[in-house]
């Protein structure tokens, strides 16, 4: 029986002709937009996670402490601190020389070492949220040895907010296009209903079960959705293959993300499923008249 229903659905799809093609293209467009934003969002999410792991807070000290080990121990014991490392004035100068490279001689001309001693703090993994980082910075500022505290997670959070915004835009655009796609599938199915009205009448008169009457309509909608989703996935794969190698150096430089990644298999399956459901919904909306 499924073979018969599928055969009828394919026949219906051919009957719907250009309208079915429009519906397939609209579903492809909506899912490609959704998938594109999803792809951007997931890569940005990875960048945010990477940067959260790299968060450092620098506590500049008023003067070099007499017992740096004791200070480090005291700071390590503070809530939210994952690790702490003391950087003396001499080490800071050494780092500056390395950074200056061939211009390191400039540092030699200084009358004395102006760089302050500091503590390099890595927050605990749970303390990289804006609130936790703000609390930690406040506690570190209150240390009597502290001159100034630098660093935090604000810009990472801004990156995270950007990622959320991208997701919302993607969902919004996808939803508008999906609505258009559903309406087009409904139109295509209505045309099929009109073309098949004699068959449907005969089916009803002879007492064909409801799933046999409506099944092909639902199936042809789902087929349109599945075809649209498949097109969308191939468009995404093509665009990714074309653009990712060109964008990766820029992304690596700006976001520190070594390489861009495509959607996970589960995401691809979800897009295919969404397309099939969209198409099925369109087919269901166009259901014909019922018995009195």
């Amino acid at each position, binding site marked *: 029986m499924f073979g018969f229903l599928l055969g009828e659905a394919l026949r219906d799809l051919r009957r719907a002709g250009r309208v079915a093609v429009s519906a397939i293209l609209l579903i492809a467009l909506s899912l490609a937009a959704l998938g594109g934003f999803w792809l951007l969002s997931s890569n940005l999410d990875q960048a945010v996670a990477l940067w959260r792991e790299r968060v450092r807070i620098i506590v500049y000290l008023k003067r070099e402490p007499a017992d740096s080990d004791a200070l480090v121990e005291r700071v390590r014991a503070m809530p939210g601190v994952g690790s702490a490392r003391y950087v003396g004035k001499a080490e800071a100068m050494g780092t500056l020389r390395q950074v200056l490279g061939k211009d390191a001689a400039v540092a030699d001309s200084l009358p004395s070492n102006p760089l302050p001693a500091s503590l390099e703090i890595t927050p605990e993994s749970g303390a990289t949220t804006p609130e936790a980082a703000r609390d930690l910075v406040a506690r570190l500022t209150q240390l009597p040895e502290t001159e100034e505290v630098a660093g935090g997670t604000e810009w990472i959070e801004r990156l995270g907010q950007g990622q959320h915004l991208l997701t919302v835009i993607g969902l919004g655009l996808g939803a508008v296009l999906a609505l258009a796609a559903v309406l087009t599938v409904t139109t295509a199915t209505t045309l099929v209903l009109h073309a098949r009205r004699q068959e449907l009448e005969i089916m009803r*008169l002879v*007492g064909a*079960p409801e799933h046999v009457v409506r099944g092909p309509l639902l199936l042809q909608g789902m087929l349109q959705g599945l075809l649209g989703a498949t097109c969308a996935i191939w468009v995404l794969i093509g665009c990714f293959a074309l653009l990712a190698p060109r964008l990766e150096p820029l992304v690596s430089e700006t976001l520190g993300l070594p390489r861009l990644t495509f959607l996970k298999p589960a995401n691809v399956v979800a897009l295919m499923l969404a397309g099939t459901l969209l198409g099925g919904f369109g087919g269901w909306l166009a259901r014909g008249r019922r*018995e009195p």
Partner: protein
Amino acid sequence: MIELHRVSKVFSVGPVRVPALSDVSFRVGKGEFVVLKGASGAGKTTLLRLLYREELPTEGEIEVLDYDVPALRRRAVAELRRSIGIVFQDAKLLPGRTVYENVAFVLRVLGTPRREITGRAFDALRAVGMSSRAQAYPAQLSQGEAQRAALARAIARKPLLLLADEPTGNLDEAMAGEVLDVVKDIWTGGTTVLFATHQAGLATVLRQRTVTLEAGRVIKDEG
């Protein structure tokens, strides 16, 4: 087999109420051949449509094949219709399918196993004398042949009841005679037949029990 008790049907067209059937009562027993006679507009088609639940009565009780027809849910309507063969004045053959495909289509949608479809379809076509025209399309058939093909489609699933809504209405005398012969053969095979016609002469020729409708009322039940 069929029992109607004080059945009325009123169609509402905006504020206007048009009575189609009024206080109709009669019964048809198993294996009977009953002619439903009446002029155009007498209510024959409405009555048949009530029997296969294409319409609901405004009042009254209808029982067909032990089904309380007005009370049926959608699934049960389909069950009822699987036991009824229906033919119309226009044969309602699917134009894009051959005679054989028209018969096979119905068997297919009712879930008949694939291996049985060809045999059963040809049995039905043979019964109405249409097996040699199996590969013809509806447009290539005479009206009489089209009606016989429609009868083949109706009997392919071996219905207990055949409802014929003026199947000879558009046919000349010779063709009508052919169709009537086929309907009588079907009846002789054990199927109950309710045959609607506006042709008074045909009712006489059939020499069967005749229920006469006039303006939606049963005015005579004889034979």
